[in-house]
């Protein structure tokens, strides 16, 4: 079974530029999460999708971050404009349903450096 795929793996941009990350979850997984992991900290949720609907985006900085999952499969996370403090690893995870007991499976992440 293929795991969660993410691209690109690394991205370096200047502040105020825009950037987009892509995630393809495990086949058949209805729930998709985007987490932000800042160096030295645990991952923190940005947004959760159930199929193509948003379940929780309470921690997403909506003035600069946006995300979509149009067909209920792949997802894109965008930052525009980027700030220095956005430097982090962006992790995508998926689970088969939205149950609290479901295991979330993580992709390799995208490491973003904002200069």
């Amino acid at each position, binding site marked *: 079974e293929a795991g*969660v795929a*993410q691209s690109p793996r690394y991205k370096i941009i200047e502040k105020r530029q825009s950037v987009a990350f892509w995630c393809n979850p495990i086949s058949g997984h209805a*729930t998709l*999460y985007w*987490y932000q992991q800042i160096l*030295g*900290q*645990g*991952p*923190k*949720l940005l947004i*959760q999708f159930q199929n193509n609907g948003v*379940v*929780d985006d*309470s921690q997403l900085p909506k003035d600069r971050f946006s995300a979509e999952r149009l067909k209920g499969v792949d997802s894109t996370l965008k930052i525009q404009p980027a700030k220095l403090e956005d430097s982090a690893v962006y*992790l995508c*995870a998926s*689970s088969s349903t*939205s*149950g*609290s*007991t*479901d*295991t*979330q*499976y*993580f*992709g*390799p*992440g995208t*490491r973003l450096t904002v200069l």
Partner: protein
Amino acid sequence: AQSVAQPEDQVNVAEGNPLTVKCTYSVSGNPYLFWYVQYPNRGLQFLLKYITGDNLVKGSYGFEAEFNKSQTSFHLKKPSALVSDSALYFCAVTPRGQAGTALIFGKGTTLSVSS
């Protein structure tokens, strides 16, 4: 607020010795608890989870964890450490009373196993 604490930034152990990585939690209601491991430049890998039932949970790669409700702890253990176990370990909990089911992570503990 619901939270997870990993009191040790780093744990050092000699190969062949038992290891323990500590985790305590603060959640309302009955918790669902998880352990993940992260190797350099890779995403999080699922190790084990506690949902209900037996307080001793067995997981991947010989790891196990003991749920202790009275002490609100979920320590990760392994009887005999391997050098290849050296990595960053995260404890996580599923929150209650929120719209989504995203995990709340501790800050992580670096495990270093020496030969």
